[in-house]
């Protein structure tokens, strides 16, 4: 693929269609692509979305805005609890919830980007969250088979990008962003700062630009 296309938030979120699965980076609101989320909320009509994100935002903040619009059909997360409105929506049957242990969630997204068909993890074996999943004993330890998670569109946030779309993340705002950037058909990166090509040290690039389709400057 070619260098990332620099575009507006509005054009970028046009990639999200009704019924899509959308990954959204961030741990809580830290490292969340807030400009892109706002564009999705204000400038897109896509609905019946499956959201893959560690949390469904907070009440009225981040993905919590999209939730209030009733445009989320399903969430795949490790921690819905940080948004009581998401919990209420699940309990009211308004959205479907798939709860995944956080490490499995991260690993499954990585697997989705890395062409891995599935993996065995000891985490969750024998618990409620392994119900309906294949389990097998490996070296005496019970493991659960987990499949990859992929998406139609990923929305990620990086503190710095270069004009090609290479990404660099700051401090704990890295979290799920580099994983999600690899696991979607279309990746849209929001960057705090967009540098000239060559201004990011090549060893410091965390997400090489072949993963990034659209680049948007943070508002």
């Amino acid at each position, binding site marked *: 693929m070619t260098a990332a296309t620099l575009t507006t938030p509005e054009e970028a979120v046009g990639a999200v269609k009704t019924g899509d699965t959308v990954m959204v980076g961030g741990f809580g609101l830290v490292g969340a692509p807030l400009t892109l989320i706002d564009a999705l909320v204000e400038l897109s009509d896509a609905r019946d979305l499956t959201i893959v994100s560690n949390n469904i935002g907070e009440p009225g903040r981040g993905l919590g805005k999209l939730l209030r619009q009733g445009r989320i059909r399903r969430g795949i997360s490790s921690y819905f609890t940080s948004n009581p409105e998401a919990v209420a929506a699940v309990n009211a049957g308004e959205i479907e919830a798939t709860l995944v242990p956080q490490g499995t969630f*991260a690993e499954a997204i990585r697997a989705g980007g890395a062409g891995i068909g599935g993996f065995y993890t000891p985490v969750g074996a024998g618990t409620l969250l392994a119900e309906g999943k294949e389990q097998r004993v490996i070296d005496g330890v019970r493991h659960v088979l987990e499949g990859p998670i992929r998406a139609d569109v990923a929305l990620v946030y990086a503190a710095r990008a270069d004009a090609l779309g290479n990404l660099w993340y700051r401090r704990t705002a890295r979290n799920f962003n580099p994983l999600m950037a690899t696991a979607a058909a279309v990746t849209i990166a929001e960057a705090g700062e967009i540098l000239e090509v060559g201004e990011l040290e090549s060893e410091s690039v965390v997400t090489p630009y072949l993963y990034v389709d659209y680049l948007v400057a943070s508002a």
Partner: protein
Amino acid sequence: MEAPALPAPGAGMSADAKARIAARAALELHPGEVVNLGIGIPNLIPEYLGPDTGVVIHTENGLLGVGPRPDDSEVDPDLIDAAKQPITALPGAAYFDSASSFAMIRGGHIDVAVLGALEVSGAGDIANWAVPGKDVLGVGGAMDLVVGARRVIVTMTAASSTGDPKVVAECRYPLTAAGAADVVVTELSVFRLVDGELRLTELLDGATVDDVAAVTTASYVVALEESRVG
């Protein structure tokens, strides 16, 4: 960071009980160990670590080398712990993505996980994430941590707010993992799981064997050791 004075033993207030549990749990951590601290009581532990313990704190949202809490002027919106509270990072700290962070955890590279629980069974089963009939919608990294960390320390009050024992014969609540606990610290005592056997190894703050028995439904062996509280 100077360790604050311990609250008076037996003060009975919940906040005090929690502080005493955190203070006792801090004694379980050794210099150079990499430790992940859960939300709640475990998050109080840094206050009871001396300045030179050399305990290294990992937070699963992507940092090895958590420093003290920042002053208001030092708060960095890109720098939080797993409880989503502002933190600082020590010199020599390293940041990484969530898959790498949980690779550390699941791969056995974290020495100790300290976390709260609803119940621990005599077999070391831990239930800490879900109450049947209530919302079962947040697990976070708990399952990864109790399975992956080399040593798991549970910190919790001996009984629930409604008086139900929390060190139990069998967990009623959904498990986080079976047979995962190594140490349980409550405000009354320390239990250790040794070769699959639950042992009462220490009484805290004047509690008696009978006090512990009154709020414990798990079977255990009384094998008291010298108190580690200085």
